[in-house]
């Protein structure tokens, strides 16, 4: 026996084209603001969590927003750098013989196959709660550990080589790319670390050309590469190597020139021991004109407030479009109600109450709205997943 729900369903399936158009209309109107809201919520949460978990960041004076994007999300490169000495000095700040904070230096100026190459210390990994799912953390010069998404997208794993990118194609004095050795893959964290390559600070300095090793060209080398030998000098072809590699054999030959204190770091993540230490350290850093210290959450909130203002304009636009579509839907339903007046009159004549007829019509409306909402939610989820996979946002 059929009931009001079956009757409503029969009507919906009978008028297929009308139903499909209505469902698509509703889905389109609902999907866009829903997708934006969902993306905002997801990324606001991801972004703010990372910022909240990073109490203090120090960089060279300049743009606070650049420093935030650089140190937390590995985007942009600051115009100026600090030195390793600055990081060491902050790490040595004390009160009553007790260190105030741990300083985690970062140097990020190059990429490896399109992914940011982040030089840092081993303190970074426990600070971010990062663990290797395979292999180990970088221990030696030339070792690298990659984020899960890097491993997936490049199809690389432990033991594979990874070449850094030639950033200065027209600089004939620049160094060759460095062939890194992947020693570990990080477990997925759901943040920018998944899309980065981590190595030691010294390795990134080698990439930058601040440190180098020496290749030996002797009787064992390819004779075609040896252009000539003279008194204490060997002339070799530029085709000797198109990249540098740090191996067990040549590792000892790698060395750095200049003062170690002057080697660059692009940002320093400062992790105070406790809130009091944080307050003292902030006060000390604020009077140093050569340092810019930011509280990431504060800078992020400023940025988000701008984004939210833009979103309000968008919301207003969506509201207008939504209202127009809702009015259109009301018109369609009203016309449908009018067209089916005879059907309702028949039901009334047979003995149906107005309430029963209204119930069937309401169920029909709710089913269409529900189907529209289902399509909207489904397409939003699929869309967000696709965005995640395609753009990693």
């Amino acid at each position: 026996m059929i009931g009001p729900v079956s009757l409503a369903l029969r009507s919906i399936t009978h008028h297929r084209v009308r139903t499909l158009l209505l469902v698509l209309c509703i889905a389109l109107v609902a999907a866009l603001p829903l997708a934006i809201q969902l993306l905002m919520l997801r990324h606001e949460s991801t972004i703010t969590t990372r910022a909240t978990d990073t109490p203090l960041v120090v960089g060279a004076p300049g743009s606070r927003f650049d420093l935030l994007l650089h140190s937390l999300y590995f985007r942009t490169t600051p115009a100026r750098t600090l030195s390793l000495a600055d990081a060491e000095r902050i790490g040595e700040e004390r009160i009553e013989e007790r260190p105030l904070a741990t300083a985690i230096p970062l140097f990020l100026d190059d990429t490896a196959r399109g992914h940011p190459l982040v030089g840092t210390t081993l303190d970074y990994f426990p600070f971010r709660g990062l663990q290797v799912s395979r292999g180990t953390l970088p221990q030696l010069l030339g070792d690298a550990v990659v984020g899960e998404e890097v491993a997936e997208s490049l199809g690389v794993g432990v033991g594979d080589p990874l070449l850094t990118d030639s950033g200065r194609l027209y600089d004939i004095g620049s160094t060759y790319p460095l062939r890194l050795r992947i020693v570990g893959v990080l477990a997925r964290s759901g943040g920018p670390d998944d899309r980065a390559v981590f190595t030691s600070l010294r390795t990134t300095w080698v990439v930058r050309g601040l440190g180098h090793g020496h290749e030996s060209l002797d009787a064992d080398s390819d004779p075609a590469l040896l252009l000539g030998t003279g008194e204490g000098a060997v002339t070799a072809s530029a085709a000797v190597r198109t990249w540098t590699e740090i191996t067990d054999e040549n590792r000892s030959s790698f060395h750095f020139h200049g003062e170690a204190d002057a080697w660059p770091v692009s940002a320093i993540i400062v992790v105070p021991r406790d809130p009091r230490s944080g307050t003292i350290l902030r006060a000390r850093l604020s009077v140093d004109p050569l340092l810019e210290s930011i509280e990431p959450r504060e800078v992020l909130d400023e940025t988000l407030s701008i984004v939210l203002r833009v979103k309000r304009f968008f919301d207003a636009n969506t509201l207008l479009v939504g209202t127009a579509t809702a009015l259109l839907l009301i018109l369609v339903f009203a016309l449908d109600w009018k067209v089916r007046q005879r059907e309702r009159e028949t039901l009334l004549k047979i003995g149906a109450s107005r309430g029963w007829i209204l119930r069937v019509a309401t169920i029909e409306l709710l089913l269409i709205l529900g189907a529209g909402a289902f399509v909207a939610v489904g397409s939003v989820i699929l869309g967000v997943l696709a965005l995640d996979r395609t753009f990693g946002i």
Partner: protein
Amino acid sequence: MSSATPGTPHLRGARVRCEELGFRHPGGDSSLSLASVDLEPGSRTAVIGPSGSGKTTLLHLIAGILSPDRGTVTLDDEVISGLPEAARRRRRLAGIGLVFQEFELLEHLSVRENISLPFAIDPALGSEGRSGRVEELAGRLGLGPLLRRHPRRLSHGERQRVAIARALVVGPRLLLADEPTGNLDPRTGAVVLDQLFAEAERAGTTVLVVTHDHSLLARFEQVIDLESPEPGGGS
């Protein structure tokens, strides 16, 4: 108003009595004024008259769809014209079958679903095994193989038989038909009317049929002519 011999009283059919009925459509010119009409249980009565004479209005007044401006409609011993709309509706659903000239089937429902529509409106009507009447009625009216079809795939004659089955499925005591053969060719109309009468006779249902077709009048026991200057229902 002419009259015919009343039919044999049936225990199953309803006795209908209309007295001093008057009705004017709001804002309309057409009106109905009738001294009295008596329908014996199980009888077959035809209503004739020109357009606008109030034939359909009379049916609607008896069915309780409309409420008269004056006068009364009595179904058995109950004056239904004085009942509230909800009560008239309940009596109509359970005890009065309606057949329309335009069939008035729901296009999105199958033949089976159209016939069992009264059970969908009031599931209580489908209890006591009455829902089994759908197949039984459909079989007798030649609709058995068509139960899964939709009205748009039926001929006019088949559609009207579906409408008759829908009107009879709850076992009404009164069947009101508004020009049931008006949209059918004479041969199909005759077949459909035969089936309508046969089903009504089987259940002892009282039948009131509005018709323009004077050739059918011989098949009725009583004729109410609304053109007649003489007021009152013939018998």
